[in-house]
Each structure stands twice: as C-alpha cells, then as structure tokens.
C-alpha cells in the first residue's frame, strides 16, 4: 500500500550523493494570493508553482530544518561546515535538549556542535582540512555514535567535496560519519531540508540488523516466530520537530487502543532504534510535508507499507488517521469502538469551549497540513468562522484536506514567512483570534489581534487530548486580551501606510527562470 499522493512519485535516490530538491521532485507553490479552489486548480495546471514575489522577506533555510532533525539524535555530534552564522541559533536552543529528552524519559546529555568557522582564506583554498580536524576532534573528545556534517552554502558553492572526506575516514572512526547536503541556496522550499536529512540517514544510519545465530537447536526458529509476530503488530509513528512529547504519548495511546504496538521515530532516536526502523508492519506519517521521502525509501528497502494522509489534529482528522491505520490491519470494528468512545467523551468536554468560541472569527497561518487540519477543527468542530489561511507552501499533499473544508472561496495566501503580506491581510480581515507559526505571532500581536501558537514543543495539539488542549488554549487567550491591546497601542509596525492599503496580490509576479 502506498498513498494516492505518492503514486506518481518515485524514490530510489539513495545511490546519489545528494537528494533532489523538492522543486524538481514534487513541485511546489511558494507564492500565491487568492481563493482556495483556484489555487488547487493552478497547482494542478502547474502555474502556481511559477510565481514569486517582488518584495520578499525572510522565510527559512533548508539547512536549519535538516539540522533540526539530525541534531535530535541521541549521542550525535553535529558539525556545521560553514561560516559561523549557519545554525548559530544553537546557542539559544541547545539548553532545551535537556527538557526534550527528559519529557521522553531519555538519558540527559549535553548537546555538542562544532562549526568549521570558514573564513575568507577557506573560501579560496577550501575547508576540507578544517572539517577533518573538526571530525577528529569530535571523535577524540566525545566518542559519539554519529558525527553528522551539515553542509552550508559556502562549501556548496566553492565545491568542497565532503563525501570524499567521508570515504577517506570510512572505517577509521568509531562514530558513523554522516554527510548532509542541505545548502540553503539550493532550494526555496525549505522542506527540502527534511529530504536532505533523511537522505543522510538512509545512506549511512539505516542498515538492516545482522541477526545473531544461536548454537542451540530451535532457538532461531522460535525467536523468528516471536520477532515475526512483534513486527506484524508494530506501527512506526514518524514524529516531527514541531510535535511535543504529549502528542507522541497521545498518538501512541490511540495505536495501543487498537491492540497494536506503537513506536515513535526518528527524532530523539538512538542509532540502534534507527537500525531497527525496518521492523514494523506499517509506517505512518503525521505530516506529509516532513517524511514522504523517508517513507517512500523505507518501503523500497524493507517493503514496509506506509500511510501518508492527514495530520491528526481535531476530531475528524484524528478519526480519519486512526481509521486508515486500523483498516490496514483489518481492525475496523475496534477502531469504530475507540472512535465512538473517544468522540463522545471529547464532544462533551468541548461543550464549554464551544459556547465561548462559537461564531468567533479565526485566521490560521503556518505549514500546509497543520493549518488546514487546525482550521477544520476551529470551523467544523468548534463552530468558529474561518476567515482565511496562510500556508508556507502548498503541494499535492493537501488537495483532499483543502476539499474537505468545503470552502472554495476561502482566502489563502501561500508564503513562507512574509509577515508584511500576512499583517496586511489580517488587518483587513480583523479576526477575533489568530493562530500562527513561530515568527509570525509577534507581528499579529502588534496589530492587536489575540493569538495563540500553531504548535509548540511543550504543548499538545494532536489526537483527541490535543484537540481539547487546542480548544482550551483558544478559549484561554480571549479571557484577557490586554497584552495585545497595549502592544498594538504602544509598539509600532514598520509597514508603510501605502503598503497596507495595497492589494497583496500585486506583490506576486511570474518567477524568473527556475
């Protein structure tokens, strides 16, 4: 089984040194202002993919997303092969590793990263020698399980051959050496970084385990039966950087309720976990933007079927997510029992929040699958009025979720970042509540619109308990909006009056050559 979105996609890229970028592999729209139904049409015809902006703001870098995945791995040292700026955000976030790991019951460990600190001389002469020094330092000082090299723009442009270094050191280190090709300039679609990270994982860390052979008669056979049964009931849930431990606990709970064994991968995993990644009956995505590349390749390598469908946020999406998993194992009746029990309980619990939120207008901005499922929850399950959405990018994976909103005229902006456009749109639509991506909410606060974050590494959003938490948060934020009122009065916005008065659609243009 695969999934209808990936039927036309092919995998088999792991013989290449670097993965293809998503622009060429999947096709993606990153600049659009208009109606939801028109956008889906334009994506199908291919013209939405060719647009870009006249006035642009900073979105993101695929290196950040790639490193976000691999830096979570247990006992790994990251080497950023670049000048000092790339991933310098580690200075602020490295401390959160402790809580990330503690909430998951994992051993505390200090996060160690190195920068090759490329300078002008390295731009001329190449930085491989410094990279080699850094690798040897990491091996000597920290004895990690993996040393992961993230390649930045500068070595990418000047042509540093990091793969040759990996070949040179092959077999001479106790750590696995993993190159990640995630040069920022190579893709405007930052989610390419997930493919880059998983490409490195697939090539260097995911290797089938060699089974021990027992000298005692029959032991291998018995063990084989036991393993076979375990694997036939195991479901891999693929976590993402934006989900919390609470989300993982909730989704695992639902899989367990079907009588299956959940296993959460690959973030925060050990190398041993990754080595056993193929031992599952089904791989399940919770966010198509993250992992079709990984799941597609795992099917090729281990034959593990996968489901890439919706993101389990809100009641309907969670039901759908669960039904699809259950169907794979022929557990439809069990699923319906779980769904009925959970839905009844949850609907009752949501009543007080529906009273508070019903009829209130809401705008949602962020990653495509998350915003559309979150918006559907607000609209269809809490009775809120959805006035618009903003997606970082839009690709094939959300066609069905968008259709299920049954709102073809819904105003949609496609933009990674671009708060100037978003502020103009939100100012015009004046929603009662805004729910958005990190980096956007602050600008909306300056507008005076009460808002809450679309995701959080410590907050629950997924499954039934996540739906309750999301409703609770939305109701909480309107209990006191003084912060937003004060901020809008006394902290300014840099946007010009002319800009705010201009239709944001005029900022979209036909792209220059791709």
């Amino acid at each position, binding site marked *: 089984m695969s999934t209808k979105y990936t039927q036309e996609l092919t995998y088999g890229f792991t013989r290449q040194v670097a993965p293809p970028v998503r622009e060429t592999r999947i096709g993606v729209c990153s600049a659009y202002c208009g109606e939801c139904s028109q956008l889906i049409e334009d994506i199908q015809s291919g013209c939405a993919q060719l647009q870009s902006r006249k*006035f642009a703001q900073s979105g993101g870098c695929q290196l950040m997303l790639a490193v976000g995945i691999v830096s979570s791995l247990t006992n790994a040292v990251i080497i950023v092969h670049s000048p000092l700026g790339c991933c310098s*955000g580690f200075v*602020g976030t490295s401390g959160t590793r402790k809580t990330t790991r503690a909430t998951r019951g994992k051993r505390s460990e200090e996060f160690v990263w190195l920068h090759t*600190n490329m300078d002008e001389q390295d731009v001329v002469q190449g930085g491989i020698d410094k990279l080699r020094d850094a690798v040897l330092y990491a091996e000597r000082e920290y004895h990690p399980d993996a040393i992961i090299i993230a390649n930045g723009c*500068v070595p990418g442009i000047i042509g540093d051959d990091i793969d040759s270094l990996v070949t040179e050191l092959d077999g001479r280190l106790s750590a696995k050496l993993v190159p990640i090709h995630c040069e920022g300039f190579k893709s405007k679609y930052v989610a390419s970084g997930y493919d880059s990270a998983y490409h490195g994982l697939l090539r260097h860390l995911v290797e089938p385990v060699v089974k021990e052979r027992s000298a005692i008669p029959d032991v291998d056979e018995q063990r084989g039966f036991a393993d076979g049964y375990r694997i036939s009931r195991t479901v891999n849930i693929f976590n993402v950087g934006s989900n919390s431990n609470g989300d993982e606990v909730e989704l695992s709970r639902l899989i367990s309720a079907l009588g299956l064994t959940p296993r959460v991968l690959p973030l925060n995993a050990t190398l041993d976990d990754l080595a056993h990644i193929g031992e599952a009956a089904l791989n399940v995505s919770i966010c198509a933007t993250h992992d079709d590349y990984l799941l597609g390749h795992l099917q090729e390598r281990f034959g593990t079927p996968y489901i890439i469908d919706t993101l389990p946020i809100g009641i309907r999406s969670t039901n759908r997510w669960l039904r699809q998993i259950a169907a794979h194992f022929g557990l439809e009746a069990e699923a319906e029992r779980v769904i009925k029990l959970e839905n009844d309980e949850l609907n009752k619990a949501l009543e007080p929040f529906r009273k508070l939120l019903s009829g209130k207008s809401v705008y949602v901005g962020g990653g495509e699958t998350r915003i559309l499922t979150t918006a559907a929850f607000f609209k269809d399950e809490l009775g809120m009025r959805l006035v618009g959405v903003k997606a970082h990018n839009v690709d094939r994976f959300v066609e069905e979720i968008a259709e299920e909103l049954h709102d073809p005229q819904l105003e949609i902006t496609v933009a990674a970042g671009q708060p*100037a456009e978003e502020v103009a749109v939100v100012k015009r639509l004046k929603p009662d509540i805004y729910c958005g991506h990190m980096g956007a909410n602050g*600008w909306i606060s300056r507008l005076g619109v009460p808002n809450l974050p679309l995701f959080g590494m410590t907050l629950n959003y997924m499954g039934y308990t996540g739906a309750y938490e999301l409703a609770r948060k939305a109701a909480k934020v309107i209990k006191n909006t003084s912060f937003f009122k004060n901020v809008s009065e006394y902290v300014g916005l840099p*946007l010009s009056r002319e800009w705010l008065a201009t239709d944001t659609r005029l900022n979209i243009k036909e792209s220059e*050559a791709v």
Partner: protein
Amino acid sequence: MSTFIERPKFSCALGGALTTLTGLNRVVPIVHAAGGCASSLAGTYNGAAGYRGVGYCGGSMLSTTNIAENNVVFGGEDRLYEQIENTLFALDGDLYVVVTGCQVEIIGDDARGIARGFSDRNVIGVSTPGFLGNTLKGYDAVMTAIVENVIEPSPVKDTREVNIFGVVPGHDVFYRGNLDEIERLLGLVGVKANTFFGTGNSIAKLRRYGAASLSVVLAPETGIQPARRLQELNGTPYILSELPIGPSGTAAFLRQLGAELGLDGTLVERVIASENAYFYDFFGRIVDMYSDLDWQRYAITVADSYYAHALTKFVANDLGWIPHLTAVNDLENEQQQAEYAKRFDDVTSELRPAVVFEQQAGQIIKHVRGSWGLNRNEKYYDALSPAFVIGSGIEAGLAETLNANLLTVAFPVSNRVALNRGYAGFRGGLTLTEDLLSQLVSAR
C-alpha cells in the same frame, strides 16, 4: 589562520551586522543573501540575547532578496535592485542598509554599488559576508559604514561630548541597560555620551555625532575600526577603555575620561563619592547574610574579552570573591592576549586569577581541572568549592559538572529575560550583586 570552533559563542559577520542594525532606531536592513540567512540570524539573537526581540524591523519582517540557485549561476543584482525599490515602498525607515551574505559575495554581486544608486533615498550598502568572521566583525563593518555615511563631519567639536564604541547590541545581552547607565553617569560629570543604541536615539541624532571631541572604545578590539575611521574623516581621536562594572571599575573609568577630557577633577571625585555612597547604602543590606552564611565563592569567569576582565575585577575587587580562573574566548592573536592578560594586574585579591584564552567550549573543564589538584581519595582534600561560574548559557554543563552556581552574563543568555537590566556603573554593580547572590538563595 582560523580553526574550527566547538560551540562558538558567535554568529557570523552578517549576524553581527543584523544585530547591530536591529539596535538602531527605525533602521531597515535589506539582506542580499539566500532566503534563510536573515530570519535564522535574527532568531539567534531573539532567542539567545535574553529574548531581546526583533527590534523595529527584524526577525521574519527582515527584507531579503531570497536568492536561490539560479541567482548563484546568473547573478543576483537585478533581484537586489527590485528588492530595494519594493522595500522603500513597503517599509518605513530613516535609513535603509543593504547587507550581504556569503553567496552573493562569492559570485561577485556589486551590492554596495547598487545601494549607492539609491543614496538619495537614504540607502547605504555594507559588505558583511559570513566568511568575513564573527559577530564582532559585522559590528565593525556596519559601524564603519555609519561613520562614513551617516555621521556628518563637524569642524567644531564639543569638549563635553563623546562617542561610545565597542558595545555590540545583542552580543552584549545587557547593552541597553549598560548604555543608559553610562549615559547617566557621564551626564553627572557634565559630558554628553553618544551611545548609538541607547534610549531615545535616532538617525537624526547620529548624524550630529561628529561634534563629539573623543571616541571611547569599550572593548579591546571591537569598535576600534569605526573609531579610527571617524578619526580619519572627522579628526575625532579615540581612547581604549573598558565597560565599567561596580565601584572600582566605574571610578577608574570616570577618572580616565576626566583626565582625557580635562574635566574638573573635584567634580569627578564628588560624583564618584556620591555614587559610591549610593552603592554602599544598598550593598550594606547583604553584609549580615554574606557574613553569616559565607557567601564568598571561588569565581570561574568564562566570557569574551568585553566582559571577562570587567566581571573578574568586580567579583574580586568589589565583592571579595576569589577569582580562580578567567577564560577568554575571542582573542586569537598572541600579542593581544598578552596585553589583555596585563589588565588583570589591577585585581586586588591576594590570589590572582589564572587567565586562559580558549575558544573551544568543551575545553574549559580541562583548564579548571588542570588548575586544581585532583582528589586522590584523600580524606582531607582542599576542594575548589564553593564555586560559582560567571559565563554564558553554554557553561550550564560546566557549572553542573563542577556543582557550582551559574549566572549567565556573556552571550548567549537564554535562561533569563533581559529588558532594561544592565551591569555597568555603580548601579549595575548592585544589579550584578543581586543576580549573583540570588542564585545562592534561589532554591529556598
């Protein structure tokens, strides 16, 4: 030649340029680079500089050309031209500064030339590719451009006006509090301090900084380049000084400035005496508990050269702690290191600190262990305890290993929020005392 760095406490020159520009009021940066540079670097300072925020037009609001692979092949100058034009339309500002990332500098885009074409509309350009070096290099590049393009030369100088260089917004997490206190202190001795980033500044005010008769550089290296440029263009001499922290540091600072500017010595001494009285009026409150509970600590200071000596001197000379080891992470040149080490001659404690220059964060623990005899299972062992680490967030692991308290002062600081807090001056000395000692009682 530079080496790799373990857990560097810097971003790149572009990061330094952006954090500097974010510190200037109503200034709009235009980043000519790949799409992620601007917001990632802004995120570094938003998250690791005591949550300083994104300023007037930083963070995701940063204007950027978002160049991609096709521009790397065909050039990105047309894209920059279009972006400047549209930024002038979309964003209000008193000054627009084009800064550059690695990609466009390697391919040879003439960003400064394009910016010059917009000079009649308050646009200037600076070359700030990441490979130029660390944060501090970016500060120097931007400030030199401000000196060249914003500060208007003034043949008439005011002997009671000085410019302050070397305080890097964000990299000095407490820059706002520090600069406001320096401005207040100098005001007491009749001197107007031009701080660039302090409260109430504007580009209009910066234009008149040429009237200052002296530049004061508060870091050993950072800030010298723009100060020197101002000397060339406007004849303003500069002196090297240090961020003054607490009574002994601040008194020395005021006397140094008084001598340079020819201030009335009795006025300077009167101000020192009254500020000192203010300091000890409050400091007196902790005398009993300090004495009853023995709040003296072995201090291990890990910071860049801007803070390292200033902090060590405060805890040793004013607080009476034992300055055991000071590790400095930013000076690479041996001669600079030797000169910097000499600064510690003014530390008055009986025990003098070991001063090491180390940029690999993971090596500090080895310096500490190498500086103190190991316990070889002795019954009577004189331990390096009680110890206190004054450093950055990166030293959390070090403090844990040493079973020491930790106060984060040097960049990065992500375990506390800094608004108008500062450690400069007599009053900053009180704040630092509060913060250090609060760590000792925080578990109660």
